[in-house]
């Protein structure tokens, strides 16, 4: 009997505790209106939410410039010089701390 039960247990199919697809909720992180908002959304939100950016807090122009550089150099986001200028100014004007460095 015990053997039978064991055999039965071993042949149980694998079930995951979640059936079907999981759905990660979409969370809106409102962006401040301003020049370059659409470009910033287009470039940054390809890979991550805007929440990923604003948890950094208000920062200097150099800080945001370093972040953009990191995204280009380390994570390969394609950006033209014009894109960089737009996104940098948008971030600094709307999420800046008033300091250049």
């Amino acid at each position, binding site marked *: 009997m015990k053997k039978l039960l064991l055999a039965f247990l071993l042949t149980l199919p*694998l079930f995951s505790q979640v059936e079907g697809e*999981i759905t*990660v909720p979409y*969370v809106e992180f409102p962006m401040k209106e301003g020049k370059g908002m659409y470009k910033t959304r287009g470039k940054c939100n390809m*890979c991550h*939410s805007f929440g990923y950016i604003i948890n*950094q807090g208000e920062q200097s122009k150099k800080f945001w410039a*370093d972040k953009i550089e990191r995204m280009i150099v380390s994570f390969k986001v394609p950006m033209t*010089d014009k894109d*960089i200028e737009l996104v940098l100014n948008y971030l600094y004007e709307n999420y800046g701390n008033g300091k250049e460095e």
Partner: protein
Amino acid sequence: MKRREFLKKAVVITGSATIGLDAVEVGETVHPIDSRKVSPIAFPEKRPLIMFSDRPPLLETPREVFTSALTPNDLFFVRWHMPVIPTHIEPSTYKIKINGEVEKEITLSLDSLKKDFKQVELTAVLQCGGNSRSAFKPTTNGIQWGAGAVGCARWKGVKLSDVLAKAGVKNGATYIGFNGKDSAVYSETSNFVREMKLEDLNDNVILAYEMNGEDLPYLNGYPLRLILPGNYSDSWIKMISNITVSNKKNDLFFMDKAYRIPDNDCECDTPDKKAEKTKPIEKMNVNSIIGYPVKESKVRNQSHIVVRGVAFDAGSGIKKVECSTDAGKTWSEALLDDGKEGSYAFRAFRYTFKPTKIGKLTVMSRATNNSGEVQPFAKDIKWNHGGYKYNGIDEVTLEVV
């Protein structure tokens, strides 16, 4: 190069941004952010947690959870790097591949892992290397976590060494690489691939499919993740798809550039001068978190307050936890739990005291491990560019009424 110049120029466009020669920028460390509230939105298999991002999902465990040795699965923190994560895994067809410098390349189903290998269980702390990063000023690269990018669970799975033995590791092999199912948007972006030295492999390194007696939650790496007790979570690859054995170290962004600290005695550098020589963050330092009371808890004067929390390190084990209610002038030893979850686990502590004065009161916790390491005050922690390895004495300020 051109871009770099542009970015440099962009910073000084407005001209007046000159810093005086005497203004040397110094990094400081304060207590990490402790004011964030849980999000109203719950993620799959989770209760509402502190939420930084939905894509990739980034969820932090609120402080009040840290009162027991095990962290419930639905309150366990979540950190992914890549935006594209499978939202469905079929357990009956899921397979992992072991290839590279092995005698024979093999693929193993979940079923085979569960049936053909010895099952092992181990309780271990999983902590992001950037846990409490919001303590570092100026702001460093990465998510500005509070103190809750950490948790402890009982993991069940199979020994990585048994799985590798089945494939047969070739002589001369030196590294084991791990890749998961998550991926980047741009094909040029590096995948989140991590490597460990073969010489660091031991029986505590496991491939786990269960967490606290249940399937791993999707967001914690269902159906299989690597467990590397004592090490920060950067190498605990989730949704493992591939294990590749190599005979040389490979060039990997997430090994060579990220998750590194200055290779000097203080493991520190300054905002204006990045350390040239760096090393991987690897082993966790000694740490403790107060779970109760929390910020702004109200308690009655002259009543018995039981402070509860957890302490942990990289596996030498917690020797003692002390609490202070007078800004660290005097310390009293807290009671530790029985430690039956083992030396890689959280050690729950409790400390009873009676407030005697109405007004604000700060409670602190300080852990010491068996290797003699003691948590420093937050202000004494040295700044580093990645904002890694913060382990300042924890504190919460409550109100005695």
